[in-house]
């Protein structure tokens, strides 16, 4: 691959959990083309799965006909994933870091996905334009 060139790829799927495997395959396939090593590919795949699971459950409240658009851009330095949805907007600031003890006492969990995304990726950025779209940008330095 030419070190100057940036590759772009796009996947559009409906907001159904059954599409998570297609989303992971899309990421893994392109991350392999980008020459990323296996362990890092698995981390990126998981972060994108978590982002899309949050969109399906929270932005679309499991309504299956919403649209999720995933745009990839990568070059020899950076692998970037932009995920866009048109569901309810959401404020990532209100998601606390996970507290397993508290979850244990309350018997429910939340925020695990967000924590994994922040831990596994170099950059996680949310932008919401209420009533229009939400986007989350994930990136990983690969050089």
């Amino acid at each position, binding site marked *: 691959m030419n070190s100057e060139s940036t590759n772009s790829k796009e996947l559009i799927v409906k907001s*159904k959990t059954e599409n*998570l*495997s297609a989303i992971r395959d899309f990421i893994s396939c392109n991350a392999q083309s980008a020459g990323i090593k296996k*362990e890092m590919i698995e981390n990126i795949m998981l972060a994108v799965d978590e982002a899309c699971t949050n969109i399906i459950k929270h932005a679309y409240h499991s309504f299956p006909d919403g649209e999720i658009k995933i745009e990839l851009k990568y070059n020899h330095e950076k692998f970037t994933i932009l995920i866009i949805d048109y569901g309810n907007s959401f404020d990532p600031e209100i998601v606390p870091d996970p507290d*397993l003890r508290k979850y244990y*006492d309350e018997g429910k969990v939340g925020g695990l996905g967000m924590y*994994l995304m922040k831990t596994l990726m170099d950059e996680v950025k949310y932008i919401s334009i209420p009533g229009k779209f939400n986007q989350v940008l994930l990136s990983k330095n690969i050089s």
Partner: protein
Amino acid sequence: MAEFSTAIIEKDNVSVINLKGYLDAHTAPALEENFTQLIDNKRFKIVVNFEELAYISSAGLGVFMAYIENIRENKGDIKLTTMSDKVYNIFDLLGFPLLYEIFKTEDEAINKFKESTN
């Protein structure tokens, strides 16, 4: 579509759930059903074998949190075993080793239940 399946095997009065494939938000309900079924049948000593699990997301981890309190209140436990390094790392990142006993082999996990009943 990602495949996921489970099989429950009774061993020494312990129920072993074998996981296979990909555990994500789509497939987590199948595992929830296993736990519900075991709890309904008052089977509270549970070992989960991860040997053939290729992938887990937080939706899968959430299943273990959802049932653990009920199971421990009934003098049981969920013990985890035979995880790949990759799967263990995700559990570890989220702090699960503080709340769950994780064993290298299924026998060790089953034996731990025997010790506590003797």
